[in-house]
């Protein structure tokens, strides 16, 4: 990396908040996904002005840059694939303002998702989006990925709960998209910024919407002998006009992995377990939970039980939220898919997932947001065995194709990043992607802001494409004169 750039970075954020020591950089080569590439420098800005100064330095010296929150992303969004500068939001972690009357809060991007709800709990409010990693992931990353969570079924995803963002554009300007009101005049730029995976700029302040805590929440656990029965129950619950706050399913394998860790009381011999959260006023919660229980029993549930207290509720949900990590007990690595299908197609897609696992000789566990039709097959493999890596990636691609073939999507909440970009063609036609490219150029004409994420490369979907080291900038982003570092 150019010494001139390092100097600029140091003057932008302070000497001690820049590191280019190769040893330090090794720890910034990964996130929660399977890709890896080390940046050439990591900076820790304290505010929007410092972020803007870093961005301007990078743009002027033609160096790629990527923002990073907690590094819990599952699609490689925060991987510095082409080296360059990694902009950590670790120092931007203040909750700046809480406005209880208007139910909003203003926070910095490095604030941990769960800390927002914790900070407003005594006001009877909460920040609804609750990805499973909420105890660690940051709101900046949630905005970039348009993170979902367990309660999107009833409450929506991140973009439904963010009112505005102050961003640093790739031009190094600080602008507001949206604000603290519920509506903004003009184009909904905030709407496209959320979920843009860090390719349109870097959020430096985020105005979030707060929601009253429900008066009561009951959690219901239903045990089925087969995934088919549980899937049918999911459809029947929705068909009965019930939208539970959350509706989650786990198959036998994931139940066993979780149970080994949390002891949440999941029967490990069940074919599938359904967890439903019902929230609202006391008067309706019991009635609705009973209705869900009836549907489950009618569809063959061998056991339906209501969590008797808050401790049991927490244990059940902690179990569910631990699903991904708990896979570590089964295999050294796992590759998590994030496809979405119309929920009525669950049984046939799950059967196909099982067949795909058999075809590649890989163990695949399933946990999913059944209410949304958002499936998370967890493909177990060993990253130390190259053939298994290839097989896992190919199996993942087959699963995504199966989702798209049924009118679904290749990602419900984890994002495209590096991991799924070569499968974008499966879901979108060239003209669809062309419009997305036009939008990207509006914000990020030089392409240096989180380069090459989300858009397909020349590889095919499922071709072994794991990023394990720094790559050269693709044509069109690299300056004609050759790389700057």
């Amino acid at each position, binding site marked *: 990396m150019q010494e001139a750039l390092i100097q600029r970075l140091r003057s932008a954020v302070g000497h001690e908040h820049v590191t280019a020591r190769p040893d330090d950089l090794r720890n910034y080569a990964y996130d929660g996904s399977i890709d890896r590439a080390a940046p050439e420098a990591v900076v820790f800005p304290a505010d929007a002005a410092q972020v803007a100064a870093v961005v301007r330095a990078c743009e002027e010296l033609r160096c790629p840059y990527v923002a990073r929150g907690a590094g819990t992303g599952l699609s490689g969004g925060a991987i510095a694939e082409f080296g360059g500068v990694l902009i950590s939001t670790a120092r931007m972690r203040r909750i700046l303002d809480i406005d209880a009357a208007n139910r909003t809060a203003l926070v910095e991007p490095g604030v941990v998702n769960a800390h927002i709800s914790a900070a407003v709990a005594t006001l009877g409010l909460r920040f609804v989006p609750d990805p499973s990693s909420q105890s660690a992931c940051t709101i900046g990353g949630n905005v970039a990925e348009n993170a979902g969570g367990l309660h999107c079924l009833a409450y929506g995803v991140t973009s439904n709960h963010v009112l505005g963002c102050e961003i640093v*554009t790739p031009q190094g300007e600080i602008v507001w998209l949206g604000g603290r009101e519920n509506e903004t005049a003009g184009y909904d730029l905030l709407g496209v910024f959320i979920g843009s995976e860090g390719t349109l700029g870097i959020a430096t302040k985020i105005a979030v919407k707060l929601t009253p805590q429900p008066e009561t929440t009951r959690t219901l656990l239903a045990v089925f002998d087969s995934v088919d029965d549980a899937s049918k129950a999911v459809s029947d619950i929705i068909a009965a006009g019930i939208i539970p706050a959350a509706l989650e399913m786990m198959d036998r394998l994931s139940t066993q992995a979780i149970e080994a860790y949390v002891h949440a009381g999941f029967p490990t011999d069940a074919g599938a377990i359904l967890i439903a959260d019902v929230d609202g006023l006391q008067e309706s919660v019991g009635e609705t939970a009973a209705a869900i229980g009836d549907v489950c029993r009618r569809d063959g549930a061998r056991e339906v039980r209501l969590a008797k207290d808050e401790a049991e509720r927490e244990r059940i949900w902690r179990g569910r939220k631990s699903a991904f990590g708990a896979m570590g007990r089964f295999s050294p690595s796992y590759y998590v898919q994030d496809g979405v299908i119309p929920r009525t197609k669950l049984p046939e897609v799950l059967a196909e997932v099982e067949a795909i696992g058999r075809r590649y000789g890989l163990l695949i566990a399933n946990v999913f947001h059944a209410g949304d039709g958002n499936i998370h097959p967890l493909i177990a493999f060993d990253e130390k065995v190259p053939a298994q890596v290839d097989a896992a990636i190919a199996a993942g691609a087959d699963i995504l194709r199966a989702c798209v073939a049924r009118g679904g999507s290749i990602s419900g909440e984890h994002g495209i990043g590096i991991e799924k970009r070569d499968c974008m063609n499966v879901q979108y036609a060239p003209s669809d992607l062309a419009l997305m490219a036009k939008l990207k150029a509006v914000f990020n004409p030089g392409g240096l802001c989180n380069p090459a994420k989300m858009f397909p490369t020349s590889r095919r979907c499922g071709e072994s494409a794991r990023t394990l080291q720094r790559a050269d900038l693709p044509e069109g982003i690299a300056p004609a004169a050759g790389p700057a570092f």
Partner: protein
Amino acid sequence: MLNLPFAADLRKHTGSRPRVRPDECARYSVGGCTPKLVFSPHNAREAARIVSALRQEGAAVIIRGAGTAQWRPPPPVSIDAVLDMTRCDGIVEYAPADLTVTVGAGTKFSDLQSALRAQGQFFPCDPSHAAEGTIGGILSGRRDGALRQRFGALRDNVLGMHVSLSDGSTAFSGARVVKSVAGYDIPKLFVGARGTLGAIADVTLKVAPLPQAEAGLVATFERLEPACQAALDVASSPLFPSATTLHDARSAHRVRSLGGGLHDGHAWMLVLRLGGTRGAIARQADGITRICKAASAAAASGVRIEMVAQAQVQHAWADIAELACGAAYSPATVAGMKVISQPSHVAAVMARALSLGPDTECTAHPAVGLTFVHVRADAHVSTAAPSGLRAFANACEAHGWSVEFLFAPPQIGEHLLPALPLRAPIALMRKLKAAFDPSGTFDPGRFLGGI
């Protein structure tokens, strides 16, 4: 500016036959301005071909649904062609168990709702002009109603869409399923873009089950502040009503089925729409009653509370929804505006709006922070009106509230260019317009900042 002789060529290029007869075209006028050509494409591809050909002729094109928003100021200076989207209609796919429906943009909102209701579902939005308005028009104009308090805004319930662009291409973005983050969320750009980026051809929406039961609660307050406070307190409580609207006396009189308005000095009407199980509704009503009484007691003023049955509240909502985005333009109208503010500022917004004159009426969605202001002036539509309205808008801006003009007669509307909110990233918006519609084909000059 378009040369009419090209119309025949256009037909050759696009395979579509435009209407050219002035009397026919007059039925598609916008803001009193009659187009020279009217195309009625049947699908996204046809629409794209037409627009592309028109663009090469340098034409200005307005995309039109049912024409219910045609009086939005400023009026167009001239229109070469109208793209009438009402033929892109009908339900493409509806899977009740998946809670999704895909419809042509020209589908009438009311037709969609009937089809959904037959399956015990609905699209949770209560726009104005619900009877004749089209889905595409409602989305393009971002005509949210008060139900967004409980069910989310329009933008939150749009999952995917096909659009036709001025370069002749069509593009799909978003998805047909309830959740997707694959690629940019471009459908959000088209919600509220008023047809300036491209034409929405079809759209996939997230629908909701109809509530088990509904009811209404009407609280009439002596004073404005406690009414607003009660609305805020309810919104911050776990009672989760479906919608809250607040009416001044004039606005209240227009909600005929709720008794025709106010009496005994109770000048402010707060309407809460409740939904859920019967038990939940009883609790909501009880909790809200308590909050309303506490708010008025704290302000040492009175409140009167009345429960309204399901049929009555649903009937009343037809009137209430019209008040939101504005009753259709009539010769007696000076202007309709929407003021966006923090919810806690609604009382101040309403007070300021009512100081515009005796013929002003206000309807607010206080939990969301929107206030709709209608200025009517039967006798004195004067040339002074635009400057008065501008002054009001400027005063609002100074408080951090933004004002959108929704309708006005052409002679006033031509002076009402969209106000530019202080913090709006207008440079990015211009770039966006230039990227999506480089020739400025779609409705030039009438959007925010003259886009």
